[in-house]
């Protein structure tokens, strides 16, 4: 019975410290609504100050990254889709975002993130400053952001950010699933 299944889903989420979960269509409207909800939730949990800000920033960078870079969802006209989860484990928050990417962009994404994974906190901070001062948007014409997104995430994460690229079941030829995780 579906109600039972949903009950298990909810109870498991609660038991595992899930603060927030969304999976569906992405738009800026959906993002601002989710942001309000997350802020209120953090307030209720009495999570204030620096950590709450970093968590919020991580949430926005990830979900806007998904909105900007995911291709239109399979079978849709022009909608983007993504999933995001915020949870608390061992007194640390985690944020994981999942979205489709075009298979052909896989290498490009790896090239962007892999060097960051090797950096120390100081090196991340240095790279962030360099990118901030870099007037030109580099030669990367696909990037709509400022090249600062992943560095912002890495800067605020207390553990190295993690990512995974997995097969998009049913769309293996064109799409992959991109997962990104940060810890606050």
């Amino acid at each position: 019975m579906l109600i039972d299944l949903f009950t298990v889903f909810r109870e498991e989420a609660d038991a595992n410290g899930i603060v927030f979960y969304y999976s569906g269509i992405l738009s800026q409207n959906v993002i601002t609504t989710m942001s309000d909800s997350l802020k209120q939730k953090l307030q209720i949990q009495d999570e204030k100050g620096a950590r709450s800000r970093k968590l919020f920033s991580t949430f926005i960078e990830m979900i806007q990254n998904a909105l900007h870079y995911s291709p239109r969802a399979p079978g849709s006209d022009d909608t983007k889709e993504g999933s995001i989860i915020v949870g608390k484990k061992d007194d640390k928050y985690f944020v994981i975002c999942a979205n489709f990417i075009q298979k052909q962009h896989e290498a490009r994404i790896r090239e962007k993130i892999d060097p960051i994974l090797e950096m120390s906190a100081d090196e991340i901070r240095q790279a962030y400053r360099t990118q901030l001062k870099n007037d030109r948007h580099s030669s990367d014409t696909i990037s709509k952001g400022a090249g600062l997104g992943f560095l912002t995430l890495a800067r605020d994460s207390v553990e190295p950010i993690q990512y995974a690229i997995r097969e998009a079941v049913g769309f293996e030829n064109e799409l992959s699933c991109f997962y990104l995780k940060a810890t606050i």
Partner: protein
Amino acid sequence: MTDIYIPATSDTPEINFKFSSNTLSMSGEAYPENGVEFFRPILRQLQSHLKSLNGDAVEFNFKLTYFNSVSTKVFYSMFELLNEYAKAHPNSVLLNWHHDEDDDTILELGQDVQEDFTWIDFNAVVLA
């Protein structure tokens, strides 16, 4: 130059650029869907206004509490314009950098701004 007033929305800041008195203020949060496009007209007007000035004192009140990475980059371009103006007219630009006491992200960015735009007079203000 006509003053700019844009009220805040949930993802864009209040922008109050009083060119008539050279008092420029921004407050709230900034994470629009496309930050570069949102701020482009404001940057353009700021640029042409600064060109029309001849050493007049300019005060910038930066009171944002959250901004995403794209907006951060846009603000750097804004400070670059102010820095260039201050370079041509020393001691003409005052940047009031408002931040929460426990907000180390905005505090650190303020330190970067101070180091990177040395012609701007930087004044850190702790939000009450």
